[in-house]
């Protein structure tokens, strides 16, 4: 049971492991998915990928919990959670990312809720053995926490 329904739409959708979809999937509210999908997922809602779920395609949602396998990029407005049994091969972009121990994740990651930058504004210098760059004044934005 998920105690927090998505605001604005209380629908709760379930697709079990005997479901096979080729094509794009849109939903509102919540979707618990345990089937196979070859295609994309677009939603403003919350997606739960169960252990048996296999998704080959990009996922763009408000939030997603990954317990299954994803080959594709994950984008979430809010948060992405990869559970220990989850496997993600693809890039991740979200405001918040939580990874449990044991999860598989190979890809790029852009999780920068406060839009901070590295302590130096220039790209990272060639690190080993290089002459240390002079330290510029740190252009750190004041971060509201």
């Amino acid at each position, binding site marked *: 049971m998920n105690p927090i329904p998505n605001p604005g739409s209380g629908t709760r959708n379930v697709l079990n492991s005997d479901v096979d979809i080729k094509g794009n999937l849109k939903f509102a509210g919540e979707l618990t998915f345990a089937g196979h999908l070859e295609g994309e997922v677009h939603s403003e809602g919350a997606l739960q990928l169960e252990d048996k779920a296999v998704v080959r395609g990009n996922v763009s949602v408000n939030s997603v919990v990954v317990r299954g396998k994803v080959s594709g990029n994950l984008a979430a407005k809010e948060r992405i959670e990869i559970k220990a049994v989850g496997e993600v091969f693809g890039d991740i972009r979200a405001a918040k990312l939580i990874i449990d121990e044991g999860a*598989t994740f190979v890809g790029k990651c852009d*999780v920068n809720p406060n839009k901070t930058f590295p302590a130096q504004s220039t790209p990272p210098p060639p690190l080993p053995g290089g002459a240390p760059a002079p330290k510029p004044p740190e252009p750190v934005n004041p971060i509201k926490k």
Partner: protein
Amino acid sequence: MSTTNNDSKNFLNSEVEVKGTLRFGGELTFDGKLEGDIQSDGTLHLGDNAAIKGNISANSVVVRGKVNGNVTAKEKIDIKSKTEMFGDIRAARLVMEEGVTFVGQTEVNPNKVSPAAPRPGEPVKPAATPKPAGI
């Protein structure tokens, strides 16, 4: 190279600044500033005040503070909330708490699975040559 004294516990507090390569055995808790690399077969704990500009290679790393560089761990990387990490990650296991800033690439594949999860029901070519686990 580093000694195999795995009982040693080392501490560097927040008023420490290091420029250069840091090696240690056993354990190091680092809360200072470092411009350079850390290399160890041991366990590294970064504190909230830690600021690293350089690459980290250790057996396991608990990341706090700010890291601008790549982190490699034989075993496990644990990124705590409020950490700011810009760089790539490679480890057998990764744990990331909510509230982390992380921009970079990740290679965390504890079971060495390959991405091509074949759809069930799809004929598998019997003569398919085993692909090298692309790492």
